[in-house]
C-alpha cells in the first residue's frame, strides 16, 4: 500500500516536472508552430538564474519570478531579432533555433564555465503524509507547477489574449484584418513561453546539475510531451505530461528505466499514427 502511494507520488511529481518543462514548448511549438530547438536552453538558463540567486545568497524561491522575468526579456529579444523574421519557414526556424541553442550554450559556458554547478535544496528532507515519507521539495514543486500550469492554461483558454493567440494560429491574415496586432501577440506569446521555461529551470535546478549542456536533456522530453498531448490546444501539455508520466512510472515499476524511455517514445509514435501530423502554425 505504502509502496503504491509512493509510486503515485513519484508519478505526480514526474508529471509536474514534465508539464512545467513542456509548457513553454506547448505555447511556442504547439500553439504558434515555431519549432524551437532552443527550448532546453531556456530551461537551462532558468536554472542558472537559480544558481546566481543562490550564489549571491538570496532565497531560492526568489529565483522563480526572477527567472520568469529574465527569460521573458530574452524571449522578447529573440522573437524580435530572430523568430519573427522566419516564423513561417519551418526549415529556417529549425536551423536558426538550433544555432540559437548552440549560441546560448556557448554564452552560458563563457559566463559560468563548463563546470557542473548545483543549487542546494531550499527545503531538504522529507515530509510524512498519506502514511509515507516523500521529499518536501517535491511537494512544493508539484504545488507551484500545478498553479503555474493551471494559470497559463486558463490565460490561454479563457482570456482575450488566449482567444487572440488561437485566432492568429488559425489564420494570421484574418486576425490582422480584424485589427489584431499579430506581431505584438506573437511577441508576448513567445516571451511567455520562454518565461515558463525559465520558471521550469529554476524549479528543477535543486534536483540536478546546472550546466551549459543541461538543456539538451530537457528538449526531447518536452517535445515528447507536446507530441503526445497534441498541438493546437494548450491543455494537451497537461494530457501529454500525464500520459508520459504514467507510462514512465509504470514501466520503471514493473520493468526498468531503459524500457520506460522506450515505452514513452513508442507512445509518441503511436499517438502520431492517429493524429493530424503537423501543428497548424507550422503550415500556416
Amino acid at each position, binding site marked *: 500500500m505504502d509502496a503504491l502511494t509512493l509510486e503515485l507520488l513519484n508519478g505526480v511529481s514526474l508529471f509536474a516536472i514534465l508539464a512545467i518543462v513542456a509548457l513553454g514548448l506547448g505555447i511556442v511549438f504547439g500553439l504558434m508552430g515555431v519549432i524551437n530547438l532552443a527550448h532546453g536552453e531556456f530551461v537551462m538558463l532558468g536554472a542558472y538564474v537559480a544558481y546566481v540567486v543562490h550564489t549571491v545568497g538570496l532565497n531560492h524561491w526568489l529565483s522563480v519570478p526572477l527567472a520568469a522575468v529574465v527569460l521573458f526579456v530574452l524571449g522578447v529579444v529573440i522573437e524580435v531579432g530572430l523568430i519573427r523574421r522566419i516564423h513561417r519557414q519551418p526549415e529556417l526556424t529549425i536551423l536558426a533555433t538550433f544555432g540559437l541553442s548552440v549560441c546560448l550554450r556557448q554564452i552560458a559556458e563563457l559566463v559560468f564555465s563548463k563546470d*557542473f554547478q548545483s543549487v542546494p535544496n531550499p527545503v531538504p528532507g522529507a515530509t510524512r503524509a498519506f502514511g509515507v515519507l516523500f*521529499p518536501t521539495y517535491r511537494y512544493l514543486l508539484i504545488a507551484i507547477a500545478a498553479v503555474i500550469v493551471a494559470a497559463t492554461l486558463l490565460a490561454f483558454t479563457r482570456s482575450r489574449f488566449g482567444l487572440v493567440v488561437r485566432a492568429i494560429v488559425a489564420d494570421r491574415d484574418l486576425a490582422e484584418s480584424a485589427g489584431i496586432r499579430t506581431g505584438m501577440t506573437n511577441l508576448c506569446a513567445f516571451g511567455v513561453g520562454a518565461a515558463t521555461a525559465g520558471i521550469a529551470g529554476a524549479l528543477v535546478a535543486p534536483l*540536478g546539475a546546472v550546466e551549459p549542456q543541461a538543456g539538451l536533456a530537457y528538449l526531447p522530453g518536452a517535445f515528447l510531451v507536446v507530441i503526445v498531448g497534441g498541438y493546437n490546444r494548450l491543455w494537451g501539455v497537461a494530457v501529454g505530461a500525464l500520459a508520459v508520466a504514467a507510462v514512465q512510472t509504470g514501466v520503471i515499476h514493473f520493468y526498468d528505466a531503459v524500457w520506460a524511455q522506450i515505452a514513452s517514445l513508442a507512445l509518441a509514435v503511436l499517438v502520431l499514427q492517429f493524429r493530424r501530423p503537423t501543428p497548424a502554425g507550422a503550415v500556416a
Partner: protein
Amino acid sequence: MRTIQDSRSRSRLWFVAALVALLALVAAACGEDDDGTPDAPAATDTGAESTDSEEAPEPETTEAPEVPEPDEPETTEAPEPETTEAPDEPEPQEPAEPSGEPVRIGILFSNSGPAGLFGPPTSNIAEFIEEDINAAGGINGRPVETYLADDATDPAVGRQAMEQLIDSDNVDVVLGTHSSATRQAAKPLAEDANVLYIYAALYEGGECSSVMFNTGEVPSQQLAPVIPWMMEQTGGQTWFLLGNDYVWPRRSFEWARQYIEAAGGEVVGEEYVPLGTQDFSSVAQIIAGSGADLIFPALVGGDAIAFETQAVDFGIGQDAIPRLANIYEENVLGAMGPAVTAGMRVTLGYFKEVDSALNNAFVGRYFERFGADAPPHMTFSSHIYDAALLYAAAANAAGTTDTAAVAAAMEGLSMTTPTGDISITGSRHLAQPIYVAEIQADGSQLIVQSFASVEPDETCDPA
C-alpha cells in the same frame, strides 16, 4: 566520462552533428571571436579540427622559446639523451637542448559537448608535456610539439579530428582521452596510417590493436582490490548497482559482481537508467526497497548529480547507504556539495591529492601556472601526461619514432610519474596504482587507501 559520454553523445548525435554543420554560422551569429585560450569554447575548439595547429602551440611558444627553428643540419650533432630514462627525472647534467624537426604529438580529447568539461585540464597539461619532454632533451634529440583536436564528444567528429591529426598535422603519435565511441571511430584511421595511438582514458577494457596501448584504468583495476576493502571497512555485504545504460557501466558491473561474490557479498539489485535521466524518484524507491548495504553508482555527469541530490531527500543518501563510486570526479562531486558527498569513497588511478614529492611539486606547479581556480588536474589529464612520457621514453629507447619500433619498446616500460609507479603490461594496458579517496566534510578528497601496481585483468595479443 570518456566511455561515458559517448553513448550520451550517441543519443545526441543529431544535435552534435548539426552543431558542427552550423558552427560557422553560430560563431558568426554570436560574434564570438575567441582568442583560443585553453578553455576556449566549442566554437573555437571544434574549429581546432582545422586550426588546432595554431591553437595548441600558441601557449607553448612563449613557454619554450628554446624550440629551435626547423633547419635540420644540426640534427646529427645533437647528442642522444639517455634513452630509457623517464624524461621527467632530473638528470645530473643538463640535457642538451633538442633541435631539428619536431616530433609531433597529437592529443585527441573532448573539449566541447557533454564531456567538454574535461577538456581544459588536458589542454593545460599539453603545455607541460612539451615543456617537460623538451627540458629533458626531447625525443631522440628532437623537440616535441603538441597538436590538439577536439572530438566534441561525438564519434563522427572524433573521426574527423583523428583524420586531421594524421593527415594534416602529420603527428607521430596520438594520445587520446575521450569516449570509447570516439576510439572505435578513430582507431581504424590510426591502424591504416600505422600511427601509434595511446588511449589514456579510463574505460571498460577489452581494446586490443597493433597500433594501440590503453593506459587508462579498467574496471578490474578499480574494483578487484577495492570491493573487498570497502566491504571490510563498512561491514556491508549486499550491493545495489546503479549505472547509466551503456557499455562502461555494464562491463564495470560484470566485474563488480564477480568481486562481490568472491568476497562473500551479494548483489541485491542492478538497474540501468538512460543517459540524461533527470528524475530518479522511482529508482530511489527500488533502491530503498532492496535493502542494500552499499551502492555502487556508475553514473556520469548530470545524471550522477541528479541521482545523488535527489537520493538524500528519499532517505538513501551516503549517510544511509555508503557509496563506492568509480567515476565521480571533483567537478561532479563539487556540484553535489559536501552535504551530499561527505563520506563517499571513489576509486581511481589518480587524484591530485596523491601524496608524493613528485606529485606535490607537479600539482603546485599546475595551479601556479594556471591559477588557483583552474580546472583541477585529475585522472584524465594525469593519464595523458603519463602517456606522453611513456611515448617519449619508448621512442628514445627505440632511437626512432617508427611505430613498430616504439611499440616494441613500450612493452614492459616502467617509470615513476606524479601518478606513481606505472608499467606497460604484456596486454598493452598499464599496471598502475589505484587510490581510494574519501570525501571529507568540507568536500575535499582524502586518500584513505592506495594499492600499488594493480595489474589489469586484460589479455591482448595483437599479432
